[in-house]
């Protein structure tokens, strides 16, 4: 088995909630040793959010926590205790990189700001990721990705034109931030490997997420355009939408970009005459008459299981897919082939599932074989094996309450 690409990378992980832990999960998949610090007093909010395994809402059963922290070592520390802070300083000496996702003040208050850390480890890399960045009038505005998504304009881009916007699902920028965070951390690790220098990185989740809105932002700057949500309308596709399938709340997505795809759709839904219908002859006409067109397509799709429609249309070269629920994804032969869902042993639940790495490296594939830590699961391992503390010192830390 080839060695993992990040086998020599050591990360001290103060990240919490979603955007930060997603970064270190990605690096752990490729072999980085990640030590995740937790507090038993202020537990990670993701431990309190589902989906929960077997509907058990205790903090060890959250798949949201489990998915974002698989493969990491977990240690609990009460950072108000000086002895716990000494443990942190030893971990900084051990680490190549420190990641944190608190609001800007917190690390400074503990004495863990970059200037302090680089005094004990001159080539340390530190990645701070918070909602709005470490400086500026909103730097102390903390919270979840739904807040940054609203401030960035994403909420106002999901909805029906006759209703107020419904917004994207949950904490949208939390699913953008980790990707840029991993890029930033890897770039700094490469820089360090090439030059020997560490550095500090200030990653504002909002600022990275705005790259996903570069088109509307530039369009507004260049053309003064105003953006409103347009449901499933698309300027380059028609038909383009989500159509009812047989069953309760079952749907199939269909998108035609080319005239060939449109003609193939007419044949597939057994309405060959539509290809010559003057109402639908061009993309512009199909868009203008999309209410009628969508009705015709729906009359056909509603008769079939969405998977059946997907198969029929894809066989004819038409972009189509079941609007997948979790259950559909679990049974999706493509995701099965890719090994998307991975079963791993778990300290409290015996076994659980996590999602695999989202990409595959041909020579040094990811290794996803450990679950997320339970609270304090690796206290002994981290202190004894990673830091080399002896039994007396560990007993002393326990007695002190530092491992709280």
């Amino acid at each position, binding site marked *: 088995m080839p060695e993992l*690409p*990040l086998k020599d990378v050591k990360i001290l992980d103060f990240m919490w909630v979603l955007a930060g832990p997603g970064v270190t999960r990605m690096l752990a998949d490729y072999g980085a040793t990640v030590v995740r610090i937790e507090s038993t007093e202020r*537990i990670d909010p993701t431990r*309190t*959010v*589902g989906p*929960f395994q077997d509907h058990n*809402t205790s903090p060890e059963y959250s798949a949201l926590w489990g998915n974002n922290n698989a493969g990491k070592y977990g240690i609990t520390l009460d950072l108000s205790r000086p002895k716990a802070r000494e443990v942190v300083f030893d971990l900084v000496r051990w680490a190549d990189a420190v990641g944190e996702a608190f609001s800007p003040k917190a690390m400074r208050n503990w004495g863990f700001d970059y200037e302090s850390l680089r005094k004990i480890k001159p080539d340390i890399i530190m990645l701070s990721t918070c909602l709005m*960045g470490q400086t*500026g009038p909103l730097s102390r*505005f903390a919270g*979840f990705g739904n807040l940054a998504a609203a*401030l960035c*304009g994403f909420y106002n*881009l*999901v909805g*029906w034109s006759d209703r107020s*916007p419904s917004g994207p*699902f*949950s904490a949208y920028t939390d699913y953008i931030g980790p990707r840029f965070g*991993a*890029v*930033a951390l890897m*770039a700094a690790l490469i820089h360090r490997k090439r030059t020997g220098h560490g550095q500090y*990185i200030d990653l504002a989740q909002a*600022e990275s997420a705005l*790259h*996903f809105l*570069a*088109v509307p*932002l*530039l369009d*507004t700057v260049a053309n003064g355009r*105003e953006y409103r*949500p347009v449901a*499933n*309308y*698309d300027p380059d*596709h028609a038909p*383009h939408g*989500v*159509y009812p399938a047989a069953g309760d709340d079952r749907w199939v997505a269909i998108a035609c970009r080319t005239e060939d795809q449109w003609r193939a759709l007419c044949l597939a839904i057994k309405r060959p005459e539509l290809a010559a219908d003057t109402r639908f002859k061009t993309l512009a006409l199909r868009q203008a008459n999309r209410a009628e067109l969508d009705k015709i397509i729906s009359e056909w799709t509603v008769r079939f299981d969405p998977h059946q429609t997907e198969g029929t249309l*894809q066989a004819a070269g038409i972009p189509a897919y*079941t609007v*997948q*629920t979790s*259950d559909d*994804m*679990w049974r999706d032969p*493509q*995701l099965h*082939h*890719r090994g*998307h*869902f991975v079963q791993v042993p778990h300290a409290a639940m015996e076994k659980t599932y996590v*999602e695999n790495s989202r*990409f*595959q490296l*041909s020579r*040094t594939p990811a290794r996803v074989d450990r679950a997320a830590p339970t609270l304090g699961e690796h206290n002994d391992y981290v202190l004894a094996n990673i830091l080399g503390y002896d039994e007396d010192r560990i007993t002393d830390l326990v007695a002190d309450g530092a491992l709280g």
Partner: protein
Amino acid sequence: MLAGCHVLDLTTERGLLCGQILGDLGADVIKVEPPGGSPVRALGPFFKDEPGPERSVCWWAYNRNKRAITLNLETAEGREILHRLAAKADFLIESENPGDLPQRGLGYEDLRARNPGLVYVSITPFGQDGPKASYADSDLIIMAAGGTLILYGDEDRPPIRMSVPQAYLHASADAAAAALIAFYERLSSGHGQQVDVAAQESIALAAQSTPLAAPIHGGETSRMAGGAKMGGIRVPLVWLASDGQVTCVFLFGPAIGVFTRRLVDYMYAHGACDRAMHETDWIAYGDMLATGKVSMEEYERVKSVVAAFFSGRTKAELFDLARANNLLIAPVATIGDVLENPQFIAREYWQQLDHPELAMPLRYPGPFARFGASPITFRRRPPRVGEHNREILMGELGLGDREFAELARKGII
């Protein structure tokens, strides 16, 4: 950070962001386009709404910090030039359907022979292999396949996607991270490899781990206007203010219930709720709902009290309140609002790039991160069609005058 690294970017709109990220990090990125320009240049919106290959906002959005050449990869001579460029490259990024480039002798196996250190990044809808690898796709199709579309929209209507395409941006950002992991490994081993990014799997991350519900028996999550139905509880995220909408997290449990308690404390102090609501245990409230100790009717009543509180205040008032009291409330901004947001202005986020051929410079979204030792700089505006043909093919690849003219005559560049 990637100074001295060479990147060949063969992508369409499926992958342009990946090369731009590497360019932002300092790599020399060469965008390879077919003669006449990338098909992305035909995608709107256009500057002043006049179509044209040098007027596509869609092109500008994801091609800064790149140089550009034109090369006809349908011809043997064009492919040979690509082979020569790839022999010197550190990264090649492509987004063709699986099998397309190998069929033309430009697959990973074809190029590694001359350059074993090449990191070859492939971005596709469903991955390089598998029963649906050759499925036709679009942004909407990926959203459906990856488990996010079912979570978006109003429960009495079909699911809807975000009005601006997103799927391949997620995949492209993942591809950049993956490329750097492979490159980091190469610094030790000297060997490159192929990176295989599936947009379907990338976008699944935006479903917030709900795809795991089936294997762990956790119960499906489903869409609800301005929120979601999670574990049978209707969780609102969008609320009406007097002049628009705000988002607010009104949830429970040991971590998030603290914020809810602070909001209710404020409401009580200002006469906006009764004592019973003020004395409610918001930490335990979720469990009380789940076990039926609190009825869903009571939960709906509580939310209506909060809604009444919000509807009497402006977005700005509520945001000020959130900042002063550490609450989870933010205004729902338009794109215009984003451009005026004082935070981004104070941080000098927006970057101006001159477009000499336009009447005005353009303001771009700025660095995705602030690096202390090696800051991201905006060195180049997005290139024009074939802008660097001469500079790259003659100056760097060493083609002679006659050879260059011959390639131009044959329509290869």
